[in-house]
């Protein structure tokens, strides 16, 4: 009834990830493009990626709280629609950089600015073409114990610490004891 309830964290068959999937550290974020805390944490994630380089695989799954964040679902659809055209990560960054303007027209503009077919992106957004995948992400998060966004998993273990660079980096780097 709940498809693929217990997904691997992350799963190379389905997840968007940066870095190599067999890197010693896997950092998975459950996030919502309209969630201000998720927006705040993006520079921290980038910095962790920069510092850990090839030791880190970073993956992102959608966890839109659609009643509180009215644009979150369409923003997630737009990221997936751009992913269909090979540009998930550029759109992912664009969305977090523009959290206050995530209406459909803006989503199409961002896709166009990335050189993508914005009509197709908008169509997929309006048709909720990727709803199943987004819901699958959400459900996998709930089953894994996500209770709000952003929520991080380091090699499958939920991180419950403070979402600031130093503590998160220390927790992420622990498996490889980066000094």
């Amino acid at each position, binding site marked *: 009834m709940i498809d693929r309830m217990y997904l691997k964290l992350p799963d190379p068959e389905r997840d968007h990830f940066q870095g190599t999937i067999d890197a010693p550290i896997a950092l998975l974020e459950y996030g919502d493009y309209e969630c201000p805390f998720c927006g*705040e944490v993006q520079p921290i994630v980038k910095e962790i990626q920069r510092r850990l380089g090839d030791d880190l695989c970073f993956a992102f799954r959608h966890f839109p*709280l659609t*009643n*509180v964040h009215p644009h979150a679902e369409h923003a997630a659809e737009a990221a997936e629609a751009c992913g269909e055209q090979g540009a998930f990560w550029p759109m992912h960054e664009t969305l977090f950089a523009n959290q206050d303007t995530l209406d459909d027209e803006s989503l199409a503009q961002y896709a166009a600015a990335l050189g993508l077919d914005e009509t197709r992106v908008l169509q997929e957004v309006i048709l909720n073409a990727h709803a199943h995948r987004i819901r699958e992400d959400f*459900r996998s998060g*709930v089953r894994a114990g996500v*209770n*709000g966004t952003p929520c991080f998993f380091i090699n499958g273990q939920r991180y419950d610490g403070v*979402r*600031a660079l130093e503590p998160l980096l220390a927790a992420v780097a622990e498996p490889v004891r980066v000094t």
Partner: protein
Amino acid sequence: MPSTSTKSEPEHAYKEMYSKSQRSALPPKTEAPDFTLRSTPDQWLSLSEFRGQPVVLAFYPADWSPVCGDQMALYNEMLKEFHDLGAELIGISVDGAWCHAAFARDRKLHFPLLADFEPKGDVARRYGVYRYKDGVSERALFVIDADGKVYWSFVSPVGVNPGADGILSALEDLQNKRTVPATMEAK
């Protein structure tokens, strides 16, 4: 620094605000005490109305507080999953009906919030999850089965959002129990 003003602050505030004390929530197999509480300023709702289907009772300390907001926002997004498992969700706190109405409207909640308001916390007391020193209920979850018995209960630390995994597991258990005998009969 804004990035540190996230999860830890509300939890810290809770530690300051609420006393440390042990509660004993009604355990599984106990008869779930029936109750009738206001669901809106002019409507009442009784647990017994749900007899024949599982009910999730989510006791929480207060409307508007940060963790509660997250928790209720999460459950709001989970309603389809709860309904798919045949269950209804009810939130309960000691806040009054007008407060609940404003909170539900602000957060666009699509499930009832009951006001355990007068006598204050009476239902929370009967379920063993009232914090006497603090005048609010625990952050406690109960899954009541179709026969009105407690199937699963869980008390979370007051500042920690317990998520929904435990509820889903309990509801799936209940659904499996219902479907297994039917399958056996078919054979």
